[in-house]
């Protein structure tokens, strides 16, 4: 206990904190400019000077720690004088152009000057000049306004870990500049903008087109881009979204965002958005009225059901749909159409991975608090770059690393290059072999804990793969592998972060088993990266061909009948087709009608030609989307969707945290759930919902995991697994897991040639980012990343164009050389034009039924 006096008020604190914190805890305000709670103290601006008894100098409250008996005064004449002096200094070189500065009205300097500053300036010596920089497409720099608090630099360096900014020059000639010069070429998280107290670094998206005081409403919601679910604030005037901003300290992201959340919101005001339903007439999509479109769909579905049976109809849901929409969609298919042919993007990787881990460790095993990552003493990343796919989760990895936790990466992770102790960029087979080898070596060092005897039997039965063999096959140095084994074995509470690339290969099911073994041996917490905001919700809502809401298998009769009774519908007892099976069935002509809600199927699966053929083959294709996507272009009816800012609902993130998305503006269109219930009514099932709350109430009633949750609980942001303590399912069924024959995998592996793998790109998500001019402006050109050696052999320079050819097709891309890549792997992101899916052939993992992207050998033609 430490007792101090501030402004004659006695304050007792438990541990030594700064004078600033102590004052705040007592409700005493001390002005600051360079202080930010999430950054380390800096002490540069000197605004927070206070008087401390027996100390001749004024002390900066933000850096000075309290000591027993300290007597502090924050409002003496001397302090006020000092503050005024500092503010005068801050203003002498400041352009005082508040009249056209976007920060006006929410500028710390403006507020401070108003409150404490001198009425007039006495500076008459000519101000420093520094032209505003518009070199960057998104970030505007005006260094005349900069107060050199260095918050942006510290944010970028210490929190974001991007180290993209620096203060250049010295003294009053100092200014902030990205290392890359005019353009930022950084991660565009915008977190530097968030902390800039003045109008020195600003978003270029809404430059000079709003005044902060004209913002009429603010709506706090969660981001629509990825499975992290960061909180953000939508600021609205009239019916337009002016901008999205984070709020320091709020949400699980605590005010941090990534490029997508910060700048990607502009897709909602993209002029290409659909505003009216389209019906194909005489081969062309033509505008139609809503009522006409809905009855048309209902009628056609009915016909097809009558002619070909319910199982000739299938539905696919996107990961951007809310829980409510997804729930209604599957209920429609099961209850009104009468089929279990319902699946979602989650089955492409996230679902199979989660299903596998839950089968072994029980439901909820991947429901771990993101913040746990930065507290773990080691990190193993596989199958995707967390800093690209789920950037705010990725920050936790960097933070752990800064605290000294070793990071081991398998697969390609651009954003962890400077943070990983070991990184193995594998092709898909070597990935499985390396994992097998790590498991067999770590098994020797760590004893099995005995918690799960059945699984331990499996682990014991795994074929040993000596490191030497793995090293020979993969080309990774034996010493590196030995050290990796040591590093991993020494971890006590590691985090294991799993991305989709590990699932989407033909040996993906084996990799999952080895990974489960590794997690078990290391006592690791598993995190599944999720590229879309509601993949987890889709699984929970029962958008799976063999699972009912809350992950209960449909084939277990008690579950099914309970569901049927509660909902008053009949549910077919045979599981339906999953996503890739639907496409295969469509290709073979067995699916006659396909309803795709929000998903751009052609862009999300390997082999664009195969998928397009399949869609063309479908007799009746309905696509509901915000844009006329490639998939929508094949549709017979297209329905415009509302964007996430135009409707209400809930998302369940990758930690299984349930969060609310709120309506901020009115959109042109009708909520998905309303459209579906409308059709359902026509088909004879009246769902009777009046609002999303009705739907959620039903979800809560039917789902044992969401039991008793209310929208109120969700609003708090702490709606975390296992929610209201609902029982976890312990009936883990391990039987039937096949022991992988890794030896023959190694024997049969064909390691020749160069294989292409997917790079999950920081600025390009699966679809919404394609319609965000802001995100598109950062790195618009599709590319192929290749090793220095390969590029060298072909005499290719950065930026040169090449033709990348596989059996499945060819695309022209610009070359990015990457010294970290091995010679036998090239990387291509899923760009809309020139993306990896154009040159990968149709292939499915036989066990997980996830698409497999491996085995595509490329030839580079110059």
């Amino acid at each position, binding site marked *: 206990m430490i007792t101090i006096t501030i402004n004659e008020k006695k304050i007792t604190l438990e541990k030594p904190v700064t004078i600033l914190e102590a004052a705040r805890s007592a409700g005493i305000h001390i002005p600051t400019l360079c202080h930010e709670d999430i950054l380390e103290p800096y002490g*540069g601006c000197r605004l927070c000077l206070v008087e401390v008894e027996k100390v001749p100098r004024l002390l900066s409250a933000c*850096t000075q720690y309290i000591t027993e008996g300290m007597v502090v005064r924050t409002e003496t004449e001397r302090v006020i004088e000092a503050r005024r002096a500092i503010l005068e200094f801050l203003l002498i070189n400041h352009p005082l152009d508040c009249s056209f500065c976007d920060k006006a009205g929410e500028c710390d300097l403006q507020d401070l000057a108003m409150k404490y500053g001198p009425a007039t300036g*006495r500076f008459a*010596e000519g101000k420093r000049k520094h032209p505003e920089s518009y070199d960057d497409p998104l970030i505007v720099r005006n260094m005349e306004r900069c107060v050199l608090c260095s918050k942006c630099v510290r944010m970028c360096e210490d929190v974001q870990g991007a180290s993209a900014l620096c203060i250049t020059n*010295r*003294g009053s*000639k100092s200014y902030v500049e990205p290392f890359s010069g005019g353009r930022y070429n950084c991660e565009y998280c915008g977190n530097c903008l968030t902390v800039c107290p003045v109008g020195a670094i600003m978003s270029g998206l809404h430059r000079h087109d709003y005044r902060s005081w004209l913002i009429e409403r603010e709506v706090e919601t969660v981001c629509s881009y990825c499975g992290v679910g960061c909180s953000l604030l939508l600021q609205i005037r009239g019916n337009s979204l002016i901008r999205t901003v984070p709020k320091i300290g709020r949400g699980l992201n605590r005010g941090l965002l990534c490029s997508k959340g910060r700048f990607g919101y502009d897709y909602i005001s993209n002029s290409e958005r659909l505003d009216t339903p389209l019906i194909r007439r005489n081969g062309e999509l033509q505008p139609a009225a809503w009522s006409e479109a809905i009855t048309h769909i209902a009628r056609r579905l009915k016909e097809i059901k009558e002619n070909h049976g319910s199982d000739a109809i299938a539905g696919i849901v996107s990961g951007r749909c809310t829980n409510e929409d997804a729930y209604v969609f599957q209920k429609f298919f099961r209850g009104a159409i009468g089929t279990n042919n319902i699946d979602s993007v989650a089955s492409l990787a996230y679902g199979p991975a989660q299903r596998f881990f839950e089968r072994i460790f029980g439901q909820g095993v991947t429901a771990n608090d993101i913040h746990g990552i930065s507290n773990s003493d080691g990190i193993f990343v596989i199958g995707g770059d967390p800093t690209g796919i789920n950037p705010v989760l990725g920050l936790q990895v960097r933070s752990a690393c800064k605290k000294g936790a070793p990071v081991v990466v398998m697969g390609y992770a651009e954003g962890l290059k400077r943070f990983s102790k070991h990184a193995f960029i594998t092709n898909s087979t070597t990935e499985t072999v390396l994992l097998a080898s790590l498991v067999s070596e770590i098994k020797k060092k760590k004893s099995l804990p005995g918690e799960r005897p059945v699984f331990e039997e499996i682990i014991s039965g795994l074929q040993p793969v000596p490191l030497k063999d793995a090293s020979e096959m993969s080309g990774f140095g034996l010493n590196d592998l030995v050290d990796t084994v040591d590093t991993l074995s020494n971890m006590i509470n590691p985090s294991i972060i799993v991305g989709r690339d590990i699932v989407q290969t033909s040996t993906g099911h084996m990799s999952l088993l080895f990974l489960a073994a590794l997690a078990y041996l290391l006592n690791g917490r598993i995190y599944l990266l999720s590229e879309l905001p509601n993949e987890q919700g889709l699984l929970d809502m029962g958008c799976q061909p063999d699972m009912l809401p809350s992950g209960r298998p449909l084939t277990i009769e008690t579950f099914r009948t309970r569901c049927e009774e509660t909902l008053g519908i009949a549910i077919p007892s045979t599981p339906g087709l999953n996503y890739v099976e639907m496409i295969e069935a469509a290709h073979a002509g067995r699916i006659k009608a396909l309803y795709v809600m929000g998903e751009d199927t052609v862009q999300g699966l390997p082999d664009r030609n195969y998928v397009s053929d399949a869609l063309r083959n479908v007799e009746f294709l309905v696509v509901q989307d915000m844009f006329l996507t490639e998939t929508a272009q094949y549709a017979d009816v297209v329905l415009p969707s509302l964007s996430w800012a135009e409707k209400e609902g809930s998302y369940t993130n990758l930690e299984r945290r349930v969060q609310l998305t709120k309506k901020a503006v009115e959109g042109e269109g009708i909520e998905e759930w309303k459209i579906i219930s409308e059709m359902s009514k026509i088909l004879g099932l009246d769902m009777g919902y009046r609002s999303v709350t009705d739907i959620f109430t039903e979800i809560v009633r039917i789902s044992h995991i969401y039991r008793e949750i209310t929208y109120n609980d969700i609003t708090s942001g702490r709606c975390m697994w296992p929610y209201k303590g609902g029982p976890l399912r312990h009936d883990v069924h391990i039987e039937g897991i096949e022991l992988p024959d890794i030896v023959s995998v190694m024997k049969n592996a064909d390691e020749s040639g160069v294989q292409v793998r997917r790079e999950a790109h920081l600025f390009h998500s699966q679809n919404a980012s394609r319609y965000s001019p802001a995100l598109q402006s950062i790195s618009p050109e599709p590319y192929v990343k290749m090793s220095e050696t390969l590029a060298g052999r072909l005499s290719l320079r950065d930026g040169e164009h090449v033709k990348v050819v596989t059996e499945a097709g060819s695309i022209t891309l610009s070359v990015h050389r990457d010294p970290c890549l091995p010679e036998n792997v090239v990387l291509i992101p899923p760009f809309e034009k020139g993306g990896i899916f154009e040159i990968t052939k149709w292939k499915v993992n036989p066990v997980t039924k996830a698409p497999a992207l491996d085995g595509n050998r490329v030839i580079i033609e110059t």
Partner: protein
Amino acid sequence: MERVLLRNTESPHSADIHEYIKGGGYISLHKAFEMKPFDVIDEVRRSGLRGRGGAGFPTGMKWSFAVADPQTPKYLICNADEGEPGTFKDRGILEKNPHLLIEGMVISAYAIEAAWGYIYLRGEYPRAKDVLLSAIKQAYEKNYLGDNILGKGVGFHLHVHCGAGAYICGEETALIESLEGKRGQPRIKPPFPVNEGFSLKPTIINNVETLANIPCIIEIGGDAYSKIGSPECPGPKLYSVSGHVKRPGVYELPMGVTLREIIYTHCGGILGDKKLKAVIPGGISTPVLTPDKIDCPMDFRNLPRVGSLLGSGAVIAFDETVDMVNVCLRITKFFEHESCGKCTPCREGVGWMRAIIERICGGAGRNGDLDHLMEVSSNILGKTFCPLGDSAATVVQSYLGNFRHEFEEKIKNR
């Protein structure tokens, strides 16, 4: 007094290890290695040695702080940044007597149990760099540096790191930042480098001259050393004298000689026998004195009594013809240029002072400028993050205080 720091430096080969050993060099090292590290520190404490980098902090005390910190490894850094105009005393040691410094550093490292040392060398000392590098090489060859020095199982390695020309990097925490590859800006203190210095480990930073005093202390013993010069801050001291004196240069004299003795006895008086108008006693960051103060003994205790500081002991003399407003301008320009920019008052205020003085010099002074200047300097004073900004303000005030009439004249006769 027999010279200690500049012993034998007339010899053209004084930087050579053989010459150094011939003159009794590295004997103290042998002697220190026979002592316990703690006793070495005790000897230094009893010597009364105070840091020669400017602040005059008792060296023995600083060392015992670092030793009291249980963290390892510990680091020893020699501050050879010598960036203050008028100061060139360390250069004498670096170029002419590098082994004295190396010997001092090995003894110090032994005392504080540091296995790694760095010499942070002023970037504009290319000659010193060459000399140091070959001296270090020789020391390794003779096993005065290495993993097993003199076969005693003591290891110490020494690296030279060249600065890039920032005065602020002479400030110890900015120096550490710079050594770590970061932008040279001072860190928050506490924690002090003795607890969280280089790589956040306990680190001792001492000035070149401070470290060069160590062999002598070990050689003659702390008690004997404490009898040299001023009683409260004893020892030999290097004074670098420049400006309008007949024989400028580096002088080794005991602590506490008077300015008068330095200027008139050792440096032969004012050039052309003109009148002395002003003198800076300790480098440009110390307040200027008028001739009536030159009987003040040059040490850490007495100079503050007449309104200045010993600083680095860099004496700059100005004869009667010098325009003191111009001197003040030149010095303020230096501080403006060297302000690191971290804190508001120094970054913005010093430039403001410079602008006013420059205007006055350029014949555009206005009535009220001087009060204004005084106010700006008071607004800086006591509010800066590190001493650099404060010095700039005090120094300007000393020129305004002592030579206000010259400023006034400029404004009147514009």
